[in-house]
């Protein structure tokens, strides 16, 4: 005596796909529907994420996919060797839960999610080889776990200091070694012309990002910080030419919006600089709370956004050696990751952003388990205090709950910024 319930039962892969699709669509619907004055050209990006994460479409079928684990692996070299760089830093809670079986309980959710993604082997664009710079402890150690799942995984030695000439030399050697390995893997030679072309192409993408950022300096802000995070996250995996075209189109629309003084915020919305652990799709928890609480993120200092685009490769002579060295320097010298022994650069960058973007305050988020960001909050908070810049420090993770407590704190901070601005006048 039983009711016939003969429905198909999902395989683990189908289940993971559904979970991720549900996470993704929730955020995409929020972005599409919940904010005022939506930007038409953003639909390209919403649709891109929906295709990849809800419909699980592959973007790069025919190409060799080169997985990267941090921003320090130079995309210029990957493109020059005819590969597609795919940054695998992951923001899905679904994968975080899968990764928990392989990582200590208190580990960083980003790394747990990344490991979980590899463990499942379920990629819309599966990497053929993975290069991982030895940045923070957890990422470095996660490499051997990922390798044990059967991936071709290569460590790229990254120094923990950037002050000395020795560290510079060390990293330049690592980058050369990386280029050599990849060249062997691809069976292709790195040529002067190819490298020059790709430096220029990525430089062009960076210049578009800078143009986009300029609009956020305006008193009337025409684009949400959330949308910008989505655009920069798309750079992780999108076809670069499509990304350039879509961003160009978006900039054209922003120009019109700027002229027509179309704003995505209220009149007194405090301007926020976002720093700390990177928002990676779909974990936009804190940015979403900020912008739903009438704050507007005008700039950020994170490795999933500003840090990817901020500094260009500066080449003196377009010969291969000079190009290689310039590329290496960009990824070391300009980097403000908290893994470095000293990191005055990061503080300088945040202060500079506050001034340039006329921000009212800074929100610093660290993932619970990301020790370096947790540690560095002390020096950043002190420095901001010295500069008289209000700052709020938050810890969060990938779990879908916890929203209530965090939003109360963010709301109170934003209200205090509003009061502060009023009293100034």
């Amino acid at each position: 005596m039983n009711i016939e319930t003969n429905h198909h039962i999902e395989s683990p892969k189908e289940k993971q796909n559904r979970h991720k699709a549900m996470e993704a669509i929730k955020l995409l619907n929020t972005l599409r529907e919940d904010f005022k004055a939506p930007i038409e050209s953003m639909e390209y990006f919403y649709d891109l994420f929906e295709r990849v994460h809800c419909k699980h479409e592959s973007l790069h079928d025919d190409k060799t996919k080169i997985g990267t684990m941090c921003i320090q692996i130079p995309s210029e070299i990957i493109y020059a060797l005819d590969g597609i760089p795919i940054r695998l830093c992951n923001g899905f809670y679904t994968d975080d839960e899968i990764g928990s079986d392989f990582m200590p309980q208190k580990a960083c959710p980003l790394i747990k999610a990344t490991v979980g993604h590899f463990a499942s082997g379920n990629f819309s664009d599966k990497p053929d080889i993975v290069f991982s710079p030895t940045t923070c402890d957890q990422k470095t150690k996660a490499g051997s776990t990922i390798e044990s799942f059967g991936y071709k995984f290569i460590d790229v030695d990254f120094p923990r200091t950037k002050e000395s000439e020795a560290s510079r030399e060390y990293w330049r050697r690592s980058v050369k070694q990386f280029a050599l390995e990849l060249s062997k893997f691809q069976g292709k030679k790195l040529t002067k012309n190819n490298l020059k072309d790709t430096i220029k192409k990525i430089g062009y993408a960076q210049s578009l990002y800078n143009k986009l950022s300029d609009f956020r300096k305006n008193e009337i802000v025409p684009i949400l910080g959330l949308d910008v995070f989505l655009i920069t996250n798309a750079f992780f995996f999108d076809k670069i030419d499509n990304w350039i075209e879509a961003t160009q189109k978006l900039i054209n629309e922003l120009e019109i919006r700027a002229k027509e003084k179309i704003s995505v915020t209220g009149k007194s919305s405090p301007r926020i600089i976002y720093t700390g652990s990177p928002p990676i799709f779909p974990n936009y928890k804190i940015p979403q709370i900020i912008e739903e609480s009438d704050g507007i993120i005008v700039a950020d200092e994170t490795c999933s956004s500003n840090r990817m685009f901020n500094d260009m490769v500066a080449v003196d002579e377009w010969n291969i050696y000079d190009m290689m060295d310039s590329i290496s320097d960009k990824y070391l010298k300009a980097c403000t990751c908290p893994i470095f022994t000293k990191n005055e650069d990061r503080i300088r960058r945040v202060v500079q952003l506050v001034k340039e973007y006329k921000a009212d305050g800074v929100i610093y988020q660290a993932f619970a388990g990301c020790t370096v960001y947790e540690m560095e909050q002390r020096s950043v908070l002190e420095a901001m205090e010295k500069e008289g810049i209000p700052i709020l420090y938050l810890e969060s993770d990938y779990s879908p709950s916890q929203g209530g407590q965090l939003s109360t704190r963010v709301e109170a901070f934003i209200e205090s910024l509003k009061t502060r601005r009023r009293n100034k006048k």
Partner: protein
Amino acid sequence: MKYFAGIDIGSTAIKISIVDENKNLMGFKISASGSMFYKYAQETLDALISELKLNNSDIAYIVATGYGRKLYKEADENISEITANATGARAAASEFGEIKTIINIGGQDSKAISLDSDGNVINFAMNDRCAAGTGKFLDVVALKLELEVDTLGEYHFKTQGTPLSVSSTCAVFAESEIIGLLGNNHSVADIVCGVHYSIAKRIVKLVKRVGVKEGIYFDGGPALNAGLVNAIENEIGQKIFVPQNPQITTSFGAAIIGVDSYNYENN
């Protein structure tokens, strides 16, 4: 022939089963609990007895179970719904095979019960005192979507896109989340499907606390909802067994326990 009654007084419904000496189910009746548990339980029992063409004196032993069990003073014995559920499930699923785990979703609670090979309860987990992941939650959703609660299952399978997750754990907050989704013109099917998955995830967490094993039995009113059954199957990754009348498992179990208690007391 002697007969035995099991009365399960739940927050939403009163379920009564009558078995004979050989523990065969003779009949059952379900009615709403309403505001007067005792009165309605008595009326339902009387109605069932007359439906089966029996007399009150034919009922040798009554076992009460469920939240309202202590209100039914005429019972010869009262036992917790966990024990009754375990006994009922094993009897109801005798042809299906051995039951190792029971998922029960009631009107105001949900639980996972783990059994040993003799059918004894070895562990169980219940939800916190909150309507999240219970039948009440489905009622609230159905009311908001202007659907009958028993049609939710059909809507589940009509979903075209991605199920829309409802992340609030609280039934009251979830309701406002659903209002938001409706306000943005999302399909009812996608919402219903998302609601089922959010309940399913919650219940699977409970099951994991007692250990996931083969042989899962699902009962309680919400087990009539094929969409929810499918959602739980997907979340847990295996087929689950749903009895013909999932609502009466616990009262059936109580009646069976009545047979054993009666025999024990009178021999």
